[in-house]
């Protein structure tokens, strides 16, 4: 007797899934953060060095990181990724299309501005300025200049009063850029710095001043760059390869395992959807090794189905009825699947713990994919198969991958 309620349950799972997945997959995909290797950009690791008068502390490293962050912001580069590694390292990742050389220069320039007396005594520094420096052209000469304003106008007023008629020099990173004579005390706290080659340079200096000087000097200890077009190509190629792999596996599973194979493949689509949803919602950055781990996870998810279906066929060959073969096969394959996947997770966790960069992102993707396998290939796929068998709609064991002989000998 056909039990339509069971079959309806089976259909509901499939329909509900596609009703959820089809309208949402696009936004889930768009929301995924891609790593530098997939969208281009560069990754630089800096070591924070001791300043001449001061040793680096953790606070110093944090302050340096904040200063770099501000600079990147003021240069208009979006979504920078900065992380402190170890005691004194800062990793900077910048994605997208821009001039990598200029961006690197922007990061390491220490941008220490100083005002000095004729005798070389330090009178004020970049720290005494408001963060509103801007580039402009001199209204009379048309030359580029940087307009700055002191936080405390009185400080600048005192300086200009004291050194009236003398020269107060302005230094940037140990280089004198200007040495003007003070004609009269400036009480408003505003000043201009001249001597830039063009407006672009003036703008750069204004950016540095606004972001503040780096408290400690940086040394680049490793770097890599990926051009955006190559990154895009890598992403496209990997997805294309994943698509081909899916089609091949689909054909194999359906031809060899028939109905349970088809159910396994539906579960695999669910697996893929679940995986990308998790990556998307948890804000995990998807890198090339990560993507490869996900595509390989597909292999593992299929394996879970193969283990269970083979077990089911064994039971059927031993003379069990279709339903009890399905139930026993699923039950007996469980310890194998659990042991195999737990060892995978152990390897993944250790990789995550001790790995860096690429290994870490591979490990994260790997762990997520093992968990997604459990939910889809183990739980949902089993439920679907049982509902289908219990519905009695398709009773011929051939459809469940049993050989014709096996079915007859029952």
């Amino acid at each position, binding site marked *: 007797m056909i039990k339509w309620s069971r079959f309806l349950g089976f259909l509901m799972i499939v329909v509900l899934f596609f009703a959820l997945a089809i309208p949402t997959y696009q936004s889930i995909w768009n929301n995924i953060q891609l790593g530098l*290797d997939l969208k281009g950009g560069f990754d630089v*690791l800096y070591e924070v060095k001791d300043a001449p008068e001061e040793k680096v502390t953790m606070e110093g490293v944090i302050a340096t990181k904040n200063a770099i962050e501000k600079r990147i912001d003021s240069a208009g580069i979006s979504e920078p990724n900065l992380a402190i590694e170890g005691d004194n390292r800062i990793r900077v990742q910048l994605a997208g299309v821009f001039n990598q*050389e200029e961006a690197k*220069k922007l990061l*390491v320039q220490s941008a220490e501005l100083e005002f000095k007396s004729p005798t070389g005594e330090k009178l004020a520094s970049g720290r005494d300025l408001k963060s509103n420096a801007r580039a402009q052209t001199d209204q009379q000469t048309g030359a580029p200049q940087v307009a700055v304003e002191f936080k405390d106008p009185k400080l600048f007023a005192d300086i200009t009063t004291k050194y009236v008629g003398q020269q107060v020099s302005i230094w940037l990173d140990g280089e004198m850029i200007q040495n003007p004579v003070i004609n009269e005390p400036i009480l408003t706290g505003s000043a201009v710095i001249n001597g830039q080659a063009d407006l672009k340079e003036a703008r750069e200096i204004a950016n540095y001043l606004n972001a503040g000087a780096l408290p400690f000097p940086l040394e680049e*200890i*490793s*770097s*890599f*760059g990926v*051009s955006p*077009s*190559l990154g895009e190509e*890598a992403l*496209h190629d*990997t997805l*294309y*390869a*994943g698509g*081909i*792999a899916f089609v*091949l*596996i689909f054909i*194999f*599973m359906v031809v*060899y395992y028939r109905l349970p194979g088809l159910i396994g493949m539906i579960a695999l689509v669910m697996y893929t959807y679940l995986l990308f949803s998790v990556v998307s919602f948890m804000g995990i950055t998807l890198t*090339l*090794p990560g993507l*490869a*781990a996900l*595509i*390989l996870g597909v*292999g*593992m998810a*299929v*394996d879970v189905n*193969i*283990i269970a279906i*083979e077990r089911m066929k064994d039971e059927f060959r031993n003379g069990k009825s279709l339903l009890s073969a399905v139930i026993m096969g699923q039950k007996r394959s469980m*310890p*194998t699947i659990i*042991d*195999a996947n*737990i*060892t*995978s997770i*152990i*390897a*993944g966790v*250790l*990789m995550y713990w*001790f*790995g*860096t*960069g*690429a*290994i870490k992102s*591979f*490990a994260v993707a*790997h762990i997520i994919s093992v968990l997604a396998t459990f939910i889809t290939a183990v739980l949902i796929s089993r439920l679907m198969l049982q509902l289908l068998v219990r519905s009695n709609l398709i009773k011929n064991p051939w459809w469940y991958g049993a050989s014709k002989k096996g079915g007859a000998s029952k």
Partner: protein
Amino acid sequence: MKFDIVKNRKWYFGFSVLISIIGIILMLTMGLNLGTDFKAGSRVQFTVGQAFDPADIEKAIETDLKLDVAAVQAIENNGAVVRIDKKITADEEASVNKYLTEKYPNAMPQISSVDPVVARELAEKAIYAIILASVGIILYMAFRFEYKFAISGVISMLQVVLVVVSIFALFRFEIDITFIAAVLTIVGYSIHDTIVIFDRIRENLKHYKVKTTADLEQLVNDSVWQTMTRSINTVLTVVFSAGALYLFGGSPIKHFSLALVIGLVTGAYSSIFIAAQLWVSWKSRELKKPKSA
């Protein structure tokens, strides 16, 4: 009657020992082609856009840019990888960029540089990760099965790693951080395969009466054959994925996928012909002991 796999185990052991010796000799004589990730220095990858002789590029860069080039390697799509043992400075990097872009319009240079300290740290971490993963797996398997299974499984796994690394040494493929990710995946899969077989052995141990070595051999033979379809089909599907990644996945993961294909096939072989067989040989000693006592 199915082929008696267990009876011929001495042949597989001999074959594996031979492969391992060849592998170790290859690694010792040819050395590994370590990428900048593990060997300090700089690596410049760019597109030449036409067929070229690596020696010409090496000469041009040495004379025009005054850089000490260690090696130039041709890669897919008329690309070139230039290796410099010394880590180049930011200024040198800028001039390399300018030089290549002027000389080859589609160069799109990608430069990576690694300081010796960072390179050593990375290599150490990669080795730690593999050792720790092995220890973790041994402990788990010893807990779930018995230590004989665990050790046999790990020996078989190490054999797979050795084969993959020596093939990479033979063909001078670059060993970089993604290769390590590949090795770690292979380790995972190889253990996966071994566990499926061991699990069947463990289950059959409950039903078989094992008194002699012959009984034990019979049991393992049956277990291996019972899981054979699964072993083959799983390797097939995984080779579909890794093979598609190799053929269509683009240059950054070409070697990654190649390592996987080699490792997965070797892993399946090794779990059947090494892991299970090592366990039989070891376990059968346990059977003989009470007799002689």
